[in-house]
């Protein structure tokens, strides 16, 4: 019934959703959606470098995004510019530089649409290995830093005062963000990765009253989005990224009904 490529895309998507679920909750809680966007834009530069030097795309994107993230932290310390201006500066300049480099790579066949919006046809067995091994590693590290990261998300000073070392947890989390973008770029595309992080988590916020539940619902929402999105992508011949994100939007809208209910209950 399904071609091989579709099964591969499904396995890849499920792997991505399992990781974006918990990470996305932290993106929402820590107000990092623009930070995610900046890393995703810089991923284009990573992709072009991968093509230029024949590197693995995920590895190259991971390295470039990590460097940009560390650069951002340095800029925040050394300049008086507001955080969003620095994010915009890095996002657009790395996107622009990436596009300029692509111009020089005219000799390479380049599926730019697939890069921006995801392409399920492009998922290889090699990508599956990267997604599942990389994803497992990200989840493992996240579990290890969960306590200090979560505590400092609630209150930085409490975490610091009671000896949890929140600064280290924050730095590691930044690296994890770069990693999830690197492994999910083929599935969702670099313009929509942040959506995959935020929308299922936002949906989960509407129907949760504690953090564990929110993480669980965020994962379930991500999985449903991937499955529904990929089937409709196959059915309507649309790009995989937008189809997945649209599916997650539908789930988000459904979750709003629950909020409306609880408001009516209060009245």
């Amino acid at each position, binding site marked *: 019934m399904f071609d091989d490529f579709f099964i591969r895309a499904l396995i890849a998507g499920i792997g991505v959703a399992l990781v974006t679920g918990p990470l996305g909750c932290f993106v929402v809680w820590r107000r990092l959606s623009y930070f995610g966007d900046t890393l995703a834009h810089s991923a284009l530069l990573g992709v072009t470098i991968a093509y230029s030097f024949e590197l693995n795309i995920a590895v190259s994107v991971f390295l470039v995004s990590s460097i940009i993230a560390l650069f951002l932290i340095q800029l925040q310390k050394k300049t008086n510019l507001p955080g969003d201006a620095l994010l915009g500066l890095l996002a657009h300049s790395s996107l622009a530089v990436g596009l300029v480099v692509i111009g020089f790579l005219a000799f390479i066949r380049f599926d730019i649409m697939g890069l921006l919006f995801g392409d399920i046809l492009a998922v290889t067995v090699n990508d599956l290995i990267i997604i599942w091994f990389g994803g497992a590693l990200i989840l493992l590290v996240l579990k290890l830093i969960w306590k200090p990261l979560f505590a400092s998300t609630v209150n930085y000073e409490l975490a610091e005062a*009671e000896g949890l070392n929140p600064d280290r947890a924050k730095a590691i989390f930044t690296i994890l963000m770069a990693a999830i973008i690197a492994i999910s770029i083929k599935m969702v595309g670099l313009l929509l990765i942040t959506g995959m992080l935020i929308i299922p988590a936002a949906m989960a916020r509407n129907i949760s009253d504690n*953090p564990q539940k929110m993480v669980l619902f965020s994962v379930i929402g991500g999985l449903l989005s991937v499955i529904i999105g990929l089937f409709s992508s196959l059915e309507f011949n649309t790009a995989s990224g937008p189809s997945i994100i649209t599916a997650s939007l539908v789930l988000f809208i459904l979750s709003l009904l629950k909020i409306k209910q609880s408001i009516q209950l209060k009245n």
Partner: protein
Amino acid sequence: MGSNNNTLVKLKNVGYHQNDKWLVKGVSLEVEKGKIVTLIGPNGSGKSTTAKIALGIYKKIEGEVEKYTNKVGYVPQKVSIDWTLPLRVNDFMVLTENLKDDAINEALSLTGVVHLKNKNLGNLSGGEFQRVLLARAISKKPELLVLDEPVQGVDFTGEIALYELIKKISDDLNCGILLISHDLHTVMSATDHVVCLNGHVCCSGSPIDVAKNMEYKALFGEQASQILSVYEHRHDHVHSSEGDIKKN
């Protein structure tokens, strides 16, 4: 003030400045096991800053902090919980330490809010939240408790009960407490050592010694000093509006 085995944290001539302004300078104090040290002083005198230096929250400081424990409980002066986080009292209790249910219930019972265990943190009143904050800090049975105005917003009878609880915790757990408080009655009755701050240490000592001190009287007014019998002293320095200190 020689340090011994009972010392939990010791500040040696510490100071902290932000944007070229010293928030506090030249503070030395020591918290020992089973003892309550209270910081008093007007608004902006550097009480919370001193607490944060002792806790290691401020790292770029002048002077030295020696800390002999990692089991710390902290009640900050201000905590704002973000609405983007769904958080129940129960989740907040295990924020920095994994606790058994019994320990959570015990701590919440002590501060009288065990019935709120499954309530959303955002739905609590100011006084209820303050009780939860205190419960969280004591639940891990810390060796050092730092309490920055722990009973703000708590009703009058509750306030007295909570101060009694703090004293009891200090005795039962043999933990050292660094307390910041505006309630001079309580300070004077339950404290072992008082440090009066005004950007620097104005005076310090036993509650009786401090109440006798003219500096203290100048800061808090005649009424405050009548809490305990007063002996007249002469000022040895005055504060200008810029915060400079001039010897008389």
